[in-house]
């Protein structure tokens, strides 16, 4: 029991960056924009967040600058991908490559560091010990003692869901994605809505980057986002573009990762256990693909 609770506690922590990036990418997805740049946005936020924290010792400023960096990339992505109608995958990958290269470069030239940037002066966000939660059994074990952005991510889930399904903006965004022609014909500002979608995503990716670099640890390492942006994309697709579905699948991937860390002590070759998160992604995507196919066939019959 204690083991399980500790796994769930870890799960929530490992889910957070994936879920934030996924919920962020969700708007763009629903607006018909494939945001491949999630990874780069997260990394940029992690990088500039760490640098700002190092330089000023002010975590709020670090949070702001991290998100700002991510938003700037959101503009770049939107400009090339939406305004200039460039190939989204290429623009996205270009941004990811650019951030990976630029962060290493700046680290080397300005700070004389390569690979890792860790310093006592970097201030991170601490875990919160919430008085009421502390005393509730089970719930307290799972939900207490997390860092602020973990809690924020749960709030984000609610807000994202609400905006997408219960506000005019949400309806517009979905319309743009589902039937662009219809959106144009009723006079919706298609490009503007797509910009907004991408930029909301940037803000959330910014949070995810800070979560990785200044909450989980307090340092920057080249490519420290480690493919979480792409797992987030998988979560969006698996969740069939709904906020709750996306979160559930982020949670599943986080859980698989937490499990594999925990299960490494069992006498099974480590490589098999390390496959779990990726295997679960493939299995989930396959099952969803099959289900989609079936429901499509049914609707074709009708």
């Amino acid at each position, binding site marked *: 029991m204690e083991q399980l609770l*500790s796994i769930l506690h*870890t799960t929530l*922590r*490992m889910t957070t*960056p994936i879920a934030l990036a996924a919920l962020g990418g969700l708007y763009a997805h629903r607006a018909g924009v494939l945001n491949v740049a999630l990874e780069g946005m997260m990394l940029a936020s992690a990088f500039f967040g760490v640098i700002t924290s190092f330089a000023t010792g002010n975590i709020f400023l670090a949070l702001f600058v991290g998100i700002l960096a991510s938003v700037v990339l959101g503009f*770049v992505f939107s*400009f*090339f991908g939406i*305004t*200039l109608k460039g190939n989204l995958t290429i623009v996205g990958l*270009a941004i990811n490559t*650019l951030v990976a*290269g*630029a962060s*290493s*470069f700046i*680290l*080397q030239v300005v700070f*004389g*560091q*390569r*690979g*890792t940037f*860790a310093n006592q002066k970097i201030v991170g966000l601490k875990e919160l010990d919430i008085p009421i939660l502390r005393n509730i059994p089970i719930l307290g074990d799972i939900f207490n003692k997390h860092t602020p952005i973990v809690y924020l991510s749960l709030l984000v889930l609610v807000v994202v869901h609400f905006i997408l399904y219960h506000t005019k903006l949400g309806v517009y965004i979905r319309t743009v994605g589902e039937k662009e022609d219809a959106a144009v014909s009723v006079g919706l500002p298609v490009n503007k809505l797509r910009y907004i979608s991408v930029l909301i995503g940037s803000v959330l990716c910014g949070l995810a980057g800070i979560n*990785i670099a200044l909450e*989980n*640890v*307090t*340092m920057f*390492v*080249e*490519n*420290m986002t*480690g493919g979480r942006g792409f797992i987030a994309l998988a979560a969006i697709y698996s969740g069939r573009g709904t906020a709750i579905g996306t979160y559930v699948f982020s949670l599943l991937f986080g859980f698989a*990762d*937490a499990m594999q*860390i*925990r299960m*490494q*002590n069992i006498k099974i*070759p*480590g*490589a098999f256990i*390390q496959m779990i998160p990726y295997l679960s992604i493939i299995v989930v995507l396959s099952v969803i693909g099959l289900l989609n196919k079936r429901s499509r066939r049914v609707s074709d019959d009708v």
Partner: protein
Amino acid sequence: MKKRVLVGMLVGALALGLVGCGQKKETKETNKDQFKVAMITSEGGLGDRSFNDSGNEGLKQAKEKLNVTTKVVEPGDVSEGETYLSQLAESGMDLVITLDLGHSDVLKKVAKKYPDTQFAIFNTAVEGSNVSSVLFKEQEGSFLAGALSALVTQDTSLEQVNDKKIISFIGGIDSPGINIFLSGFKEGASHIDPEIKVLSGYTNSFADPAKGKETALSQIGQGSDIVFQAAGATGDGVIQAAKQKNVFAIGVDSDQDGIAKGNVLTSVMKRVDNAVYGLVEDGMKKEYQTTYELGLKEKGVELSPMTYTKDLISEDYLKQIEGLREQIISGEIKVKDIRK
């Protein structure tokens, strides 16, 4: 619109500029009589506070003390190995050292093509009349770390230590080059007390500190109070976890004791600097060996001086470790090499 295009072009130019600067080559004026050494770093390049930096340190020393010309090249990835090896040999280097064991296959080819150049490769054995292979006996350093951990984990008077006889290991990737640390660590621990339990885990990445921290927290949760990591930058996360939970971590490759003062028990150091320096020295005398196997005896591996922890730990333990070190050097204790 014109303005936008202009902005776009500027961003593009900036991007190109950054990419163009990605690779760094250091060229110094060469004097014909001087001995010329080039070193190719392994992936990660300089600034890793570890393997490559240590090699560079040795090269710097050689430059100062032995008056040789040096050059360091940092390839972007392993596939560029052949180009660099050939180019450096072509440019008249006397000794070309590669720290990347991924270059072993191409080195065989290149070495044959340039018989007048001496090559050296680290961490793997490559055959060839003009190739030296430099291997470290990581197991010997890890043995001492394991033995020390086995002693320390039973000393409950320390605030960092719990009452469980559990210690643990975190590796970057499940591979012989990493598992050699684990096997030595285990052997050392059970030499002191066969009942010590050694947990182990892998993060599948050398650059994911968040995962390193998570794995360490999981092991600490299972009762480990000393976590030995051999996982590159992932290991920085392990050390942060140890600091957060106030237990011990053990560093690797270079002296990492200062990363979290008092929470890094010791570091299993690979003295790449000594090895590089030694190679240059031998090169100037033209007395290369085909294989260098560097262990405790050759000062190729050693434990860090424990600057921040030696006062915490009972002197008796340190004496025992020193005794074990001497026994390994004299050959009384032979630590198994799982790679052979």
